[in-house]
């Protein structure tokens, strides 16, 4: 079949990339809103649920290969220091020690993403790798750490981004004369005239809002088991991007990409922090190549929380103006993001300001600042989670200044099309419907009722409040994404893709799509993924793009394979192809209903020969913008005596196009909301500024929500198939649910207390300080 090369645009985590992709054949017509589907759209339980709950699923941590060694890192106790010398003579004679990596012995151990030595001369944060020990057991490696004598020369450091921005600030890295993340910053976006818009405003608010550094705390930490056999490097990497990991490892070790095989069958979470091999994976591969034995290096929870990335802390200062009848006239944002020691880019903190509301005059300034703390990474809707919280708090305050209902204000300032792309239309936008549905279900109309706000009366210590926030995000994915569908001699199917299931249910929904088009039972489909050896490229599982990218490729492969199947059946039955149909894995005559038998009966006659077909995701439409939209509404209860905030209910109304599986979708929604609730109420990395140390790099001091903290969650999906997005009509649902939760809770707390909220998380100490002495 002839191939062609197409150019398409892919939006990933708020950035637009131009992609060239090889395409072959045509995609099937889109499943419209009225498509009659029997497997897609059903609440199928996870196809790998049994493996996951029984412990049979093998994660990178669990891999044990013959002769496997274990690596443990020695990490900087200083926020900033020079490694003057490393004496390993005591450590290397200890039992079981096989290899010790240091900056002196291993200057060529390179992080290709940053083009710098992993074990460098200058340590830039508490928790940065200073040396690595490889030993027969993890305990032997751990015991040797304290026998490595490192001479550090402590250097001045800075951990507060506001301080790091001062002209005379300490340099985060000696060789860099500025602490601004890169020469691309500060970056300003401007449309219209903000100052004029503020001058003309009938009401104006200024809000300075701070959000914390939040840790992903994936159940499975970063790292890998790597095994070099002299020709091929096989890496069981804890990654959400096996192809990205493969490229990095090949580059770091000077191998061809096809000499590296990356395997990841089950992922214990990633949330954006696992694009690539990560340092621990690169170190494992490097050590394995030196030793010729498998090396296991997966981070401890403490290493993970010091060095494996986080959502950067932000300081956002908004100025908003509106006419006295409530039309936005100006939106001005200065956003500082604390990107850590090596953070060179700024996440999309300004996206909501630019696109969420209709506003002619907008200016945003992105100011990412480096500090002597661990480096940031993407975290589920990077930038937009913290941006939405702050912007939506400011919007509520502007509505209040105008004496307007905050929801009415949002309806009035609804943006009908994409202001970032000269008014290009959205393929669908159901945000107004989300507002109406959510308002109905939370009881917005009665939110100011005395009995509701004061459940113990005006003199009692409880206050309740209701707040809401909007959600805008991408999620349309795009090419390149491939799939191969095969029918086996017994009539069951295998789908091969190079994607990953990072816990979202990818295996299950891809199986549903294949079963739908092959017309065979779901139980007859097996989905293989997470292995570069299949040679079927898929993108990273991130940016809410997996389903919308890989799903259409699987569908196309299944459609083509069904065509091949019918040709074969036609050959054996001598019935024309269009007179045949497949239902539930059996072939029937379309007219008479005659049963020709199970498809395995035909495939079994091929002497073990299997049939297969390829599918690939086609280009995105260039004349519309595909977005996911939604709104969340929160009801909270605040104890004004103790400062404790409890969420009572979250209503989440979202549009992600066609829902392939309501069960995996509700898991995504609930997970995102719970993570958003943690961000709103308790999660916060705490740093001692005098010592430059993170104090809570563990699950005791860094609080994530427990089951008791989780309120009633009411999820409503209001979308139907988006016929402009892709042949499924589906958009991604991974990131949307975390985006508005914290803003909705913050606005509910402000409503309950009648006081403006200025930071997250809203912990008891903050709430009591906010309330002041009674």
């Amino acid at each position, binding site marked *: 079949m002839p191939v062609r090369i197409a150019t398409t645009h892919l939006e990933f985590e708020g950035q637009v990339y131009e992609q060239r992709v090889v395409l072959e054949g045509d995609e099937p017509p889109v499943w419209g809103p009225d498509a009659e589907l029997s497997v897609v759209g059903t609440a199928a339980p996870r196809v790998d649920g049994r493996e996951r709950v029984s412990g049979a699923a093998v994660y990178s941590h669990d891999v044990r290969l013959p002769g496997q060694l274990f690596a443990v890192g020695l990490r900087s106790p200083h926020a900033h220091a020079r490694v003057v010398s490393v004496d390993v003579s005591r450590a290397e004679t200890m039992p079981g020690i096989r290899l010790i990596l240091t900056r002196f012995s291993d200057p060529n151990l390179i992080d290709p993403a940053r083009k710098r030595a992993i074990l460098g001369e200058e340590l830039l944060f508490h928790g940065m790798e200073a040396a690595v020990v490889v030993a027969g057991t993890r*305990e032997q490696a751990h015991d040797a750490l304290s026998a490595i004598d490192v001479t550090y020369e402590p250097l001045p450091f800075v951990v507060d981004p506001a301080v790091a921005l001062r002209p005379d600030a300490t340099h985060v890295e000696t060789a860099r004369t500025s602490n601004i993340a890169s020469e691309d910053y500060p970056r300003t976006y401007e449309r219209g005239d903000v100052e004029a818009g503020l001058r003309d405003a009938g009401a104006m608010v200024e809000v300075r809002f701070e959000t914390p550094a939040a840790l992903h705390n994936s159940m499975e930490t970063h790292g890998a088991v790597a095994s070099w056999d002299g020709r091929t490097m096989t890496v069981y990497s804890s990654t959400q991007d096996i192809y990205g990991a493969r490229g990095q490892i090949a580059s770091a070790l000077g191998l061809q990409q096809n000499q590296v095989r990356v395997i990841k069958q089950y992922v214990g979470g990633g949330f954006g922090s696992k694009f690539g091999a990560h340092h621990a994976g690169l170190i494992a591969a490097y050590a394995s190549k030196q030793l010729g034995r498998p090396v296991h290096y997966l981070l401890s929870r403490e290493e993970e929380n010091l060095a494996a990335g986080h959502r950067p802390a932000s300081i956002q200062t908004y100025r908003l103006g509106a006419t006295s009848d409530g039309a936005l006239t100006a939106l001005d944002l200065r956003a500082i993001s604390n990107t850590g020691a090596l953070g060179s880019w700024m996440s999309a903190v300004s996206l909501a300001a630019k696109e969420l509301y209709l506003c002619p005059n907008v200016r945003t300034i992105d100011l990412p600042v480096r500090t002597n703390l661990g480096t940031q990474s993407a975290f589920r809707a990077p930038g937009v989670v913290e941006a939405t919280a702050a912007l939506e708090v400011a919007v509520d305050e502007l509505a209040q200044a105008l004496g307007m209902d905050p929801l009415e204000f949002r309806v009035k300032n609804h943006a009908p099309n994409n202001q970032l792309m000269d008014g290009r239309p959205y393929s669908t936008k159901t945000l107004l419907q989300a507002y109406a549905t959510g308002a109905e279900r939370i009881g917005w109309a009665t939110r100011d009722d005395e009995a509701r706000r004061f459940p113990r009366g005006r003199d009692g210590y409880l206050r309740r409040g209701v707040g809401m926030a909007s959600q805008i995000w991408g999620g349309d994915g795009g090419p390149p994404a491939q799939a191969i569908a095969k029918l086996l001699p017994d009539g069951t199917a295998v789908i091969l893709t190079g994607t990953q299931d990072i816990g979202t249910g990818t295996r299950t929904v891809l199986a549903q799509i294949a079963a739908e088009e092959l017309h065979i039972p779901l139980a007859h489909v097996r989905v293989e993924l997470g292995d570069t050896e299949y040679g079927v490229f898929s993108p990273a599982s991130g940016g809410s793009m997996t389903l919308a990218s890989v799903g259409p490729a699987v569908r196309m492969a299944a459609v083509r394979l069904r065509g091949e199947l019918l040709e074969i059946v036609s050959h054996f039955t001598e019935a024309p192809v269009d007179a045949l149909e497949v239902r539930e894995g059996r072939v029937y005559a379309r007219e008479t209903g005659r049963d020709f038998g199970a498809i395995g009966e035909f495939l079994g006659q091929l002497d073990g020969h299997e049939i297969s077909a390829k599918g690939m995701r086609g280009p995105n439409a260039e004349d519309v913008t595909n977005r996911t939209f939604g709104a969340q509404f929160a009801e909270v209860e605040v104890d004004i005596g103790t400062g404790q905030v409890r969420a009572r209910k979250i209503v989440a109304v979202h549009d992600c196009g066609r829902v392939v599986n309501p069960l995996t979708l509700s898991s995504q929604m609930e997970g995102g909301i719970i993570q958003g609730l943690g961000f709103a109420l308790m999660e916060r990395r*705490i*740093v001692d500024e005098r010592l430059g140390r993170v104090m809570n790099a563990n699950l005791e001091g860094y609080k994530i929500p427990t089951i*008791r903290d989780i309120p009633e969650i009411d999820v409503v999906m209001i979308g139907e198939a988006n016929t402009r997005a892709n042949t499924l009509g589906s958009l991604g649902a991974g990131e949307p649910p975390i985006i508005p939760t914290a803003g909705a809770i913050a606005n509910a707390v402000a409503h309950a207390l009648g006081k403006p909220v200025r930071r997250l998380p809203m912990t008891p100490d903050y709430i*009591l300080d906010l309330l002041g002495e009674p």
Partner: protein
Amino acid sequence: MRAFEHISTASAEEAIERLTENESGEARLIAGGTDLLTLMKADLAAPARLIDLKPASHLRGVKGHPGGSLQLGALTTLAEIERDATLASMYPILIQAIRDAATPQLRAMATMGGNLLQQYRCWYYRDGLRCWLAGGDECFARTGQNQYHAIFQQGPCVAAHPSDLAPALIALDATTTIQGQTGERETLVEDLLAAPAESRRVPHILGQHEVITRINIPASSATARGIYLKAMDRQAWSFALASVAARLTLEGNVVRAARLVLGGVANTPWRAHEAEAALMGQAITSELATQAATLAMQGAASLAFNGYKVRLARELTRRAILLTAGVEP
């Protein structure tokens, strides 16, 4: 964690014998291990020998006596106490404190005796810094991140006592029976727990060669009313930001005996003596509860980030007094 020798023992006497053996390296007792293992994994403790008390089954279990006094074996787990329906009706403070402690998994392992001997959770100490508690000179928390630390200052260290059980036991006038080399002694829980001192940098006064064998609750405590209130920064699995155990003996509405013991605010559970005195002989009213709660905070000296605890602990105390007396706060 460093390699160690594991020694099983069948009784407190045998354990003491093993503790006093003239072997090289430190020997430590282990029961549930929920605290000691975390210290060992962080290299904060590296005993050469662990003397395991768990086989001493006679140190496990609850004995009730006519009249209501109670003996709790030191090896009884928190979960076993929690499940005891009789205790729940007679000693609500105890059960409420246990239900708010840690997690079900931890409560299934953690023992009553071990709970009283647990080390502080201060994150500077647990992070391996050589702070005063770890044998150094400086308390980093005093001038650092101290939002979880003490508001009543008792010495060089500002760590807050982490136990939920201890304030409850002190409010119940509980004692511990301690087995030593030369015999038994009985000590109030209130006296067992003491602010660490220059030569004894642990939060208790138990000797190196002593074992807690039981906890005793007097009969008089069973008839009183009590409550345990705890504030956390989430709904479970957190040490107290502040907590209070309150017990009142009432005649009608008039207070004949009062115990108010705060957790999470000092090196030890903090007995609010002035507040207790203010309640004596008085009828409980909203004003009296507020007045007593204010007295309970007398002498508080908060640090840079824990000023909120004063207000929090005062409010919990006020509510506890009212709730114990059956008044809605």
